[in-house]
């Protein structure tokens, strides 16, 4: 027990109204610093994407980040009990939003549906990921590890995953659907799903994939075929991949220089401020800059995973793991996409890409993550509650 822990325990004992302060103290400010650093990278890059001006991208994004930061810290102070209680209504709300967006959402570029709520763009599919993590964590922490052996107990959570996946696919947003599915699957795995069951379920996967491909939209199939051979249609569907790779490649070791990336500044890069923002970083700052960003992302992911492992309650562990995996999948899909490793899909780079809805959802996720860290010693859900947690 180090000095820091001792200090805050004394603080808690001294006066219950210091609990909030104590919790603030327990927030991993190093982690917040990493988040801030990544957001800073985002600001700098959006400044360049805006043609060397704070508007139209960098400044609004900074304001959103500030709001997100407050939101994150507020969420971080919520105890797991409340979070678990909120899981069901939040999940329900996310389903309602997903259904609503199908019927009255605005469509951008064939995917990425959003709702206008009070003048704010809301992307329900982003929110659904957070909601799903909460809901699954609540479910898995309620049933014991032992019950994970019974497949019947896994049917409700499987439905909890499949319903939003189906709704998001219908939007249709393949990238986000894959991420939601991936996050759900990793929670199943981490919660202790038995290996024999996993093996059994993995058998029909190839057939399912084949079936899925036949139900893809034309533009989604075009992405897959052009991914296989981007040069087949250099000005059409393959354009994004080719230009993105040119931008990355022309960055070289040290980059073309800040505000001097020709691909980005001359608009050869498609959606440079959103999906392809990493390409701008790599073009202007070179391999060195891109590697720094990769390291930052990896630190955030591993930090989140560490928080998950350190949590003493099942709910917190699963929430932290779900959020970290979500963040990881986010980064993986986006980075693979811009490097031409997987077909393009509308997945932004968290915290860096321009976009309010994604930013707030990511900060909400980090709030949940920090909450599990703050309450890591809570024995919530174990029938052995300790008064001081």
């Amino acid at each position: 027990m180090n000095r820091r822990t001792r200090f805050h325990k004394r603080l808690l004992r001294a006066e219950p109204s210091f609990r909030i302060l104590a919790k603030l103290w327990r927030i991993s400010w190093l982690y917040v610093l990493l988040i801030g650093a990544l957001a800073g990278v985002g600001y700098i890059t959006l400044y360049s994407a805006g043609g060397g001006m704070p508007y139209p991208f960098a400044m609004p994004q900074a304001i959103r980040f500030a709001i997100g930061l407050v939101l994150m810290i507020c969420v971080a102070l919520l105890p797991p009990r409340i979070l678990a209680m909120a899981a069901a209504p939040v999940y329900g709300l996310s389903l309602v939003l997903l259904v609503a967006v199908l019927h009255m959402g605005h469509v951008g570029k064939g995917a990425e549906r959003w709702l206008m709520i009070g003048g704010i763009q809301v992307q329900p599919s982003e929110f659904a990921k957070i909601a799903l993590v909460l809901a699954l964590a609540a479910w898995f922490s309620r049933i014991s590890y032992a019950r994970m052996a019974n497949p019947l107990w896994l049917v409700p959570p499987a439905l909890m995953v499949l319903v939003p996946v189906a709704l998001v696919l219908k939007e249709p947003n393949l990238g986000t659907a894959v991420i939601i599915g991936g996050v759900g699957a990793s929670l199943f795995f981490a919660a202790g799903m038995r290996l024999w069951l996993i093996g059994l379920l993995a058998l029909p996967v190839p057939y399912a994939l084949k079936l899925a491909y036949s139900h893809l939209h034309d533009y989604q199939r075009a992405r897959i075929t052009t991914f296989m051979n981007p040069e087949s249609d250099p000005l059409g569907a393959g354009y994004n991949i080719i230009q993105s790779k040119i931008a990355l490649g022309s960055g070289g070791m040290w980059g073309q220089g800040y505000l001097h990336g020709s691909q980005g500044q001359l608009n050869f890069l498609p959606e440079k401020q959103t999906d392809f923002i990493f390409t701008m970083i790599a073009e202007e700052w070179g391999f060195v800059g891109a590697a720094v960003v990769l390291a930052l992302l990896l630190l955030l992911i591993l930090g989140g995973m560490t928080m998950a492992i350190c949590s003493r309650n099942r709910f917190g562990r699963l929430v932290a793991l779900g959020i970290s995996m979500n963040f990881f999948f986010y980064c993986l899909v986006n980075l693979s996409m811009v490097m031409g490793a997987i077909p393009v899909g509308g997945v932004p780079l968290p915290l860096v890409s321009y976009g309010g809805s994604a930013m707030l959802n990511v900060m909400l996720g980090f709030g949940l993550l920090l909450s599990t860290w703050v309450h890591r010693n809570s024995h919530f859900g174990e029938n052995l509650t300790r008064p001081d947690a």
Partner: protein
Amino acid sequence: MRLTRRKRENPRLMPLRAQKDPGRGVFTRRALLFMAVQVGAIGELAHRLYGLQINDGDHYARMAASNRISKRLLAPPRGRIVDRFGLPLASNKENWRALLMPEETTDVAGTIERFSAIIPLDERDRSRIAREMRHQRRFVPVMLRDFLSWDEMARIELNAPSLPGVLIDVGTRRVYPDGELMAHIVGYVAPPNEQDVAHSTLLSLPGMRVGRAGIEQNQDEQLRGTAGSVEMEVNAVGRVMSELNRVEGMPGDEVSLTLDRGLQQKVLNHIGDQTASAVVLDCHNGEVLAMVSTPSFDPSLFDSGVSHAQWIEWTNNQHTPLINKAVAGVYPPGSTFKPAVAMAALQARSVSPTDRVFCPGYLDVGGTRFHCWSRWGHGSVDMHDALKYSCDVYFYEIARRVGMDRIAQTANQFGLGVPLDIELPHTRDGLIPTPAWRKAHHHHWNGGDTIVSGIGQGFVQVTPLQLATYTARIATGRAVSPHLIRAVNGTVGEKASPDHWPALDIPDPHLKVIRDGMFAVVNEPHGTAPKARLDLPDMLMAGKTGSAQVRHVSRALRESGHFNSASLPWEYRPHALFICFAPYDAPRYAAAVVIEHGNTGAEAAAPLARDIMRDALLRDPSNRTTPPPESVADAGPTIE
């Protein structure tokens, strides 16, 4: 608060830690597995990035540069064509065009409709606009109409508010200030066809033209110039962001012709509406001072495309307006060939100038009677008289004596029937027939063929330019060749110097006999062309008439005494020819005139040649560096 229920495991039998938190160990192991996967995945991404940025970096950097930089050629202005005094014969004029920038109007179709209400657009324009509109990006302007007049531009400007996106810019068009006067020599330009473009990328630039006739075609490469280039930074949609580098092209060379525009105009005026051609040469260096072929055509019609009806009209016209008769029209030289026959005889030493031949009005050879043009004959004539009277029998006789091969040799030496190195496309070489030529065409050469060739009939065919060259060579005894290009970019070519031209291998006394004979034609009593006598003081001209039959005249018709070629239909009348040089004592100018179906050289061609020569002497372009003012040119000769 009970959130879990355990049935299978008795909590009391389990270790406290596992009991408190079953599955945590599994979770930790599996989370660590995830972390390993995460590190691996991000590592793989970094590795991939390294491959893209470092290993293939150069490749992609080049691709980025070619993305960014758009190189465009700049069309060079076409070189001017000027006459010997620098007066423009072909130049470039601003071509005002109305363009439509599709991205600057919300209603493209409506804008075009409103535009066509102001400036009518025909079907061809409309389909071209629609085609360009489909193929081009929205910020690339589409040409609506070119060759706008001031009046049309004013109307567009006036209606500018209702024509969003319509703008006016300026290109160049080729203009021919003298139109028909120079059409055959200067030629014309037309838009390049696909083969031209395949040959030279320069021609793919908008506004580039290719010479299709005359000097424009012959000197196309010189006139075209070299393209400049401009490197521009463009953005993804191709809009120009900045100009990086500009290399100006070289405008085409300015080609100065040997022609005197003023003389050309006077020659054309003298010809009037006859179908004729005339060539005036400088005897000393072969410079073509005037070359006229009538009728002519308007070369500017070709710049924007000739209508089908116009083309049919031109090609079906029996007066062949598109053909430059001076170089591509071939005619039997008729009596104008006689000096060449005489020269051949002198060269062959088969006849002496004083040898006399008796002309009874006909010559019987091998059972065939060859008539002299004079029914009564000329009596006993020597060479001088034979040239003066143009006695056919004399030349039948000496042609028979000399033989066709020697006649052809001398004629070729004087430029008849051989290619002349004139800077024009589509020239013809004419023909001086020989037994060998006849044999090559699987025919036997008859003695009669030689005899009729002696008076420039039969198979003999020459161009007016060859006749003028032949005259110039007689006048100076130098092997001058006609040429049209005097200077390129102000540098006068070596052909302008008389010393460039070697002497013909012909003794002066022989030439003098011929010249004297030609002098007699014009100036002595009973010469065939008294009408060609100059009315200038101290200026005398030598010449030779020619009337070339285009149809066999039957003996019956001839002996009926009612033979009058002037009563024949136009296309059966003989051609009228005249060749001349002046001043007789110091030859400077040589001319040849051919009037198609003009009947007789003496009546039709000689006066025309006289008028032309008079103007040539008065203007005296060869001794001037600036064109004479009209009043001075008419005042009197400048050479003494």
